[in-house]
Structures are given as C-alpha cells and as structure tokens.
C-alpha cells in the first residue's frame, strides 16, 4: 500500500548504485570558498560519517545534499537523477525522500506526537495512518509514554529522541544528521549513539552522519570521510582512518598526538628505519629510503616501563629512555610527556602511573611497536 507523497523505496540502490552522489561540488559565501568536494557517494544501507573540525564545511555540505541550499557549482545526484538547483514542487519532492536532523532538536511548539507527525502531515498522510506510524516510532525510540507531553517539558536527551523519531517516521531513503548529539551530556550521548547505531543498522537506513567527534565516528561509521577546510582529505573504513591516516591533518585529528619530521634511512622487507631528531625509529612501511616523512604514534600505543627493562632494540619494537617532563591527570588516565629527547606523549592508566612511580623528573623507559608507527610520505 502506497501513501500519497511517500514514494516507494527504491530497491535498485546497492553498492554499485549509490543513492546520493555529488561531483565537483563547491560552495562560496561572498567569494570565500567553504566547500570543495570532488567526488562523494553514499551507498544504499551504509552509515557514512563525515568527520571534521568545526568550520570544515560539514553543515553546508548536508544542507546542499538536502536541497535546502544550492551549491555554487557542481552536481548532486539522487537515485540517478541530477537534482541540484531544482525549484518549487520538484525540489520538495526530492527533498522529501531525505530528512535532516540538526544539532539542536528544534522541536516545534506542541506535543511530542504532534512533532513526530509533522513530516507525515505536510506529506498529506491521513491522520489515522499518521497516528499509527507515530505510535510505532515512539516505541522504537523508547518514548511510548511521552506521546501527549508538551515538548517544553522534555529533557535534552528526550528532545533529541523526539527529533530523531520525527525524522525516522518519514522513512527517509537517506537520513542526514548534523552533529545530533553534540549538545548532550556524555552519558546521554553514549546511550543515544548506541541506540541510533542499532536503529540505523536494524532498519538498514542509509545515513550521512556529520560529527567532529572521532569516537562517535568510530562507533557509528561503516565508512568515514574526513573533511578539512571544505575538502575531503581521506576516505576509508574506520580502521583505515584511525590507523592508517594519509595526511598529517588526519593523523592529528584522529588522535596521533605524537607527530614528528623524520628521514628514511633504510627500508627493507617492509620495515623502515627512520631518523627522528637523531633517534632511530623502526616503522612498518615500504617507503623509499632518503625520503622526508612525517611519523605519527598514538599516545595509547606507547607504554612506559622501568628503565631497567629497556633492552637493545629488538626486531619490530622501539625502546627508548627519557626524562618525564609533564604529567597530566585526566580522571582514570594520565598523559605523560617524556623527553626522548623529542617529547613523546604516552597515555597510561593512573594505576600504572602509580605502580611505576612516575613523576616529573623521573627517568623512564618508553616502548612502542613498529606497527604502531604510521609513516606519512612528504607532500601529504
């Protein structure tokens, strides 16, 4: 049974036929470019995370995809049809196959169910159908008891659930989310991330999820795309983004707090020897010798050991000694900076900090695997 104004889901969408694509997309405000995306595609059923710092152009990008704003140049293709620049009824018809959730719930005056039914109402869905679908979605987001409540009485988390339900009830072919959890407190955010992940996967909803939070990106993304100053700088699986960053920017953004300039001394059998400020470091890489590179190490991949345990460099393992210059306590974990002589930041538990008796001025051993070192070629 088809509802008026709600086109049937396209079953043609698959990996081979991306549902939403963009090519050569640019946007400028008053001559200032804010977005420049060469190629972009969302495949049916995947959750694509767009990760980037604030001001990277993420929100503009979503608004263009949702046809709320025209691009300065380029094309947007929805289900095989070029749709950028559509006007009036044609624009609305395409826009209605998507839904966008903002950072703030932006609930309309009225009750929870009135809000959730809004999208169905403007599509002309009959009130009986509307009630039925609103009830069903209320259960999905766990708000069954709040249907009649005025939205002004909701908590922040509840309000964002209503916003989520208001978009999901439309059964959009693509759900666009613009940092929907950024204003929530940490426990609420975690709970909602988990739930939304389950809901999206359970319904095989195609989604584009924008965030500046790398943890959130890792939790939700089937694929991640990193945006920096309006450009896509890397695209890949969460594993690739978090462990094989291709540029210094991505490395820094996804948590490689240790990034140094280095020079490749030798490279053999996939193991490279790299000089960083006079210290030799082994890294798993088949980069050519002689090249200037950037070397990145995640602080949680660096372990601290007593100096007595520091041995001669073993295969695929780096061992150094240095003096602790800074200890920063962060609840259950601690960030320890060791001068080796270049500053290496290690993230260890507070317990090991105490067990090792680490304090500023102490001598410690530092150890990290060659596989933990990411090597980024020059010019990236």
């Amino acid at each position, binding site marked *: 049974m088809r509802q008026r*104004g709600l086109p049937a889901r396209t079953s043609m969408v698959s990996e081979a036929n991306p549902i939403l694509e963009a090519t050569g997309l640019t946007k400028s405000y008053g001559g200032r470019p804010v977005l420049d995306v060469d190629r972009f595609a969302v495949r049916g059923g995947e959750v694509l995370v767009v990760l980037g710092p604030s001001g990277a152009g993420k929100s503009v990008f979503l*608004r263009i995809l*949702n046809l*709320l704003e025209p691009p300065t140049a380029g094309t947007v293709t929805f289900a095989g049809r070029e749709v950028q620049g559509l006007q009036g*009824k044609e624009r*609305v018809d395409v*826009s*209605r196959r*998507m*839904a*966008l959730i*903002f*950072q*703030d*719930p*932006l*609930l*309309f*005056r009225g009750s929870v169910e009135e809000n959730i039914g*809004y*999208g169905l109402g*403007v*599509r002309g869905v009959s009130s009986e159908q509307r009630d039925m679908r609103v009830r069903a979605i209320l259960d999905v987001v766990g708000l069954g008891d709040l249907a009649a409540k*005025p*939205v*002004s*009485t*909701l*908590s*922040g988390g509840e*309000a964002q659930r209503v916003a989520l339900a*208001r*978009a999901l009830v*439309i059964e959009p072919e693509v759900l*666009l989310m613009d940092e929907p959890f950024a*204003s929530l407190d940490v426990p609420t955010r975690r709970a909602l991330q988990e739930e939304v992940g389950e809901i999206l996967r359970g319904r095989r909803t195609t989604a584009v999820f924008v965030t500046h939070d790398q943890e959130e990106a890792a939790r939700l993304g089937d694929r991640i795309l990193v945006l920096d100053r309006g450009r896509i700088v890397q695209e890949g699986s969460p594993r690739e983004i978090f462990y094989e960053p291709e540029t210094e920017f991505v490395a820094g953004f996804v948590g490689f707090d240790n990034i140094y300039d280095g020079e490749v001394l030798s490279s053999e059998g996939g193991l490279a020897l790299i000089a960083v400020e006079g210290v030799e470091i082994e890294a798993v890489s088949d980069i050519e010798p002689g090249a200037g590179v950037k070397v990145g190490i995640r602080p949680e991949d660096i372990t601290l050991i007593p100096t007595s345990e520091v041995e001669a460099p073993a295969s695929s393992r780096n061992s150094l000694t240095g003096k602790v210059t800074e200890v920063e306590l962060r609840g259950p974990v601690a960030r320890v900076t060791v001068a080796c002589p270049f500053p290496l930041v290690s993230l260890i538990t507070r317990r090991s900090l105490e067990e090792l008796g680490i304090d500023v001025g102490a001598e410690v051993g530092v150890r990290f695997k060659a596989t933990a070192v990411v090597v980024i070629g020059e010019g990236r």
Partner: protein
Amino acid sequence: MIFILRAFKQAFFLIFGFNREFYGVIFLTLLVNATATFIGATIGIPAGVALSEYEFRGRRPVLVLVHAMMGLPPVVLGVFFVLLFSRSGPFGFLDLLYTVPALIIVQVVLAAPIVAGFTYASLEDIDPRFGLQARSLGATHLQSVYVKLREARAGLVAAIIAGFGGVVSEVGAVMLVGGNLKGSTQMLTTYTVQEMRKGNADLALAAGIILIIIAIVVNVFLTRLQAGKGQREVETKGVTGAYIHG
C-alpha cells in the same frame, strides 16, 4: 473632589441607563476599531512575513518606511487623508470625507505598519533553523513559514495588540477625517474631547471608562491567546535549544 465623585455618578447612569446616543458612539467605536485592526492585521502580517522571509528589490526602503509609519503622528495622517478625500482632492469623487469608511481607511493605514513592524521583528527573533528544519522534514516554503509563525505566536499577538492599541487611542486623525459628526462619525475618543471642551467632565469620564474597559477586555482575550495551552516559553528555549546556538 465632590466634582469628581459627581462625574463618576453621572458616568454610571450614562452607562447603565443605556443612553441610546452614547451606546451608538460605543458601537461605532467598536466597529471601526475592530474592522481596522482586522484589515490592518490582514495586510500587516503578510507584509511582515514578506519583509522577513523574502529578499526582494526595495526591501530595505520598505522596511524603513514601515518603521517610520509606526511612529507617525496620526494627526499628520489625518491631514493627508482630508486632502486626499476632499472634494478637490484626487479621491474626492469617492465622496468619502466625514464617512465611516473614511474612518476605517485612516485607521487601517495606522494599524497595518504597526502590525507589519512587530510581525517582522518577532519573525527575525525566531531561530532561522526552525524554517530549515521544517523544510528538511518535507515542508514547502509556505509550510515552513507557517511553522515559524506558530513559533512566533506571542510576538504576533503582541503585534495585533499594538495595532489595536494604536487605533483605539487615536483622536487626531478620526477627528479630521470623520469630522466628529454626532450620530454618524463620532467615536469615543472624539466624543471625550468634545464633551470635555463643553465642560461636561462627567460625560467625558464615562467615555473614558468605556475605552478603558474595551482595552482591558480585548487585551485579556488577546493575552490568553498569546500564552497558548499553558505553555511557558521560558522553559522551551532551554530545552529545544532554539536560542543557544542561534
């Protein structure tokens, strides 16, 4: 002191004695003010929406004009309309001077800019993302404007209250355009002026009391409309985040 008490007593008899002539004045006042407010809102609200929602050529000058008209002394407007409607004026052939339609026209011209200005201001105060959110959920542009108007309801009611306040308190323009003709274009305000001049402070006071009652009754009704179904705007803002990141 005794004089004032006597005036109150007279006013009481006038009101509860259902003086035919006096009630004629009340009726005309209600008719003209209500009609002018209604037509003024019908013009002013869409005009305010247009100024806030659409970019068109001449938007800025129109906005300045609307704001200037909001503060225009009504008596100046009265002079202007007398010239327009006088026999030798451009609209003299309509024979409108000293008629009820002339009263309504001049009050519409007073009320409409007030309603438009307040409507514009209250829409500008609404987070523009409400419109985007509505459109992203499938609303047409017009449907998204409706969402914003609903969010701005308190401001819209204030706009109508201000428009009504402008016309109900008006003397100069209706005096000039209507001529304060007994039994045909005499309104409560002009009646008050006339009776005061004649030394009938009791009659003037009676008219004043009626004007105050009208103002209170209308504003109680409108304020109830403004508050909605017992919803408090103050709480909504924090939770829905309307103004947090605006």
